[in-house]
């Protein structure tokens, strides 16, 4: 299992593995927002939490089709399927690798980007915590979507269409948690909901993803 994880991490880090792409995209989004809504810092301060969440979500979305694409193309996915490791574990490792190479870097970069968007002081900790709690769910849900579209040639757009509605609950509670943190309100409810969704998806969705992959590998 660890071998699979390190292999995926190495693949992602390679040139062309798309590691920096998610970060670069996040930066672009953050840079474009003031051009779109105006540079007034009170306005930016009010929407910063939401924009940062949205940016993180879209950056995650970008790298989803890589989760299975390389292995599908060179046949390693078929080999993995016959390995002694259960498919559910394989799928979970893939999601973990995705989070480590996409979600985690985003979280680490967030303080810098939050600065660009005038996020108020009080918002930093709740925002980072909400991203930390929520981005794993994005990876797990994204893995499900990637499994569904793995065989398709132009599957990227369909992947987005399938995954974005599934992202809505996480986005709502994550952004709300960050927003409430900015205003100094109690963040318990959205925090618990967000954590609940993440735990639920990590526990249950791999079964669906595994079933989907097995169908596609038939």
């Amino acid at each position, binding site marked *: 299992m660890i071998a699979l994880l390190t292999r995926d991490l190495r693949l992602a880090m390679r040139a062309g593995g798309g590691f920096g792409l998610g970060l670069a995209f996040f930066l672009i989004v953050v840079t474009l927002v003031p051009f779109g809504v105006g540079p007034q810092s009170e306005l930016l301060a009010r929407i910063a939490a939401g924009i940062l969440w949205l940016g993180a979500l879209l950056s995650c979305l970008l790298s989803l089709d890589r989760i299975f694409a390389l292995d599908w193309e060179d046949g390693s996915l078929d080999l993995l399927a016959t390995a002694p490791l259960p498919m559910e574990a394989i799928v979970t490792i893939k999601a973990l690798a995705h989070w480590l190479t996409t979600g985690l870097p985003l979280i680490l970069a967030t303080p810098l980007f939050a600065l660009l968007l005038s996020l108020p002081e009080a918002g930093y900790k709740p925002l980072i915590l909400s991203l930390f709690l929520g981005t794993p769910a994005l990876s797990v849900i994204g893995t*499900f979507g990637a499994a*569904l*579209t793995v*065989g*398709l040639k132009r*599957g990227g757009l*369909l992947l987005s*269409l*399938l995954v*974005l*509605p*599934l992202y*809505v*609950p996480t986005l*709502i*509670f994550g952004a*709300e948690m960050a927003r409430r943190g900015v205003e100094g309100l109690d963040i318990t*409810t*959205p925090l618990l*909901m967000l954590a609940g*969704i993440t735990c639920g998806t990590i526990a249950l*969705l791999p079964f*669906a993803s595994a*079933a*989907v992959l097995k*169908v*596609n590998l*038939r």
Partner: protein
Amino acid sequence: MGMSVKSLWEYANPKKFIQTTDRVLPWVSVLAVVSLVVGLIWGFFFTPDDFRQGSTVKIIYLHVPSALMAINAWLMMLVTSLIWIVRRHHVSALAARAAAPVGAVMTVIALATGAIWGQPMWGTWWAWDPRLTSFLILFLFYLGYIALWEAIENDDTAADLTSILCLVGSVFALLSRYAVNFWNQGLHQGASLSLDKEENVADVFWYPLLVCIAGFVLLFIALVFLRTQTEIRARRTRALLARERMG
């Protein structure tokens, strides 16, 4: 060989399904049209205005039935997807495929009538009212489901993938409903647009509404019967064409 049916599962046989629905479809269609016409005319011409909402209350005869069907269509898809997963009856998978566009149209009607109804009340053409927002999300689920069927060539693979998507989507749709209510609870408190069933809908509105709901249900059933037949035939055509190409 008698005409007696031993169990409901007999209709899972494609040929039997087509035979039976061929006989039933004309009746269901006529009943649907009659109910719709009677219900809408009754509601539009022969009911009074509401004290608070004026003549816009007449929109319930379209908004409520379509919203109900939008949800029920998805539920039907969920059930038939489960039947496909467990019992592998092709008719079941094809029925889900057939129902999806109808459900999507119902969702659009619910959204459009909901938004139009809201305009005079709220002064805006669109409001992120929790109910409307939930229907917008439901519409996205329908689109994804339909798109996945279209994207996959192999019929059985498509049936398997879309049924799993329907299952997962149902859980998330339910989750979204609660999330959206949480998200918008601060804004339009109490000013919910649609008529809750718990609210006392006066009899004078309720009876024509019932007829309209019946009309929408019957229309849905008729369309699903017709469209499932089409899917069965299309599948058989594809199979014959494939055999021809190989032989």
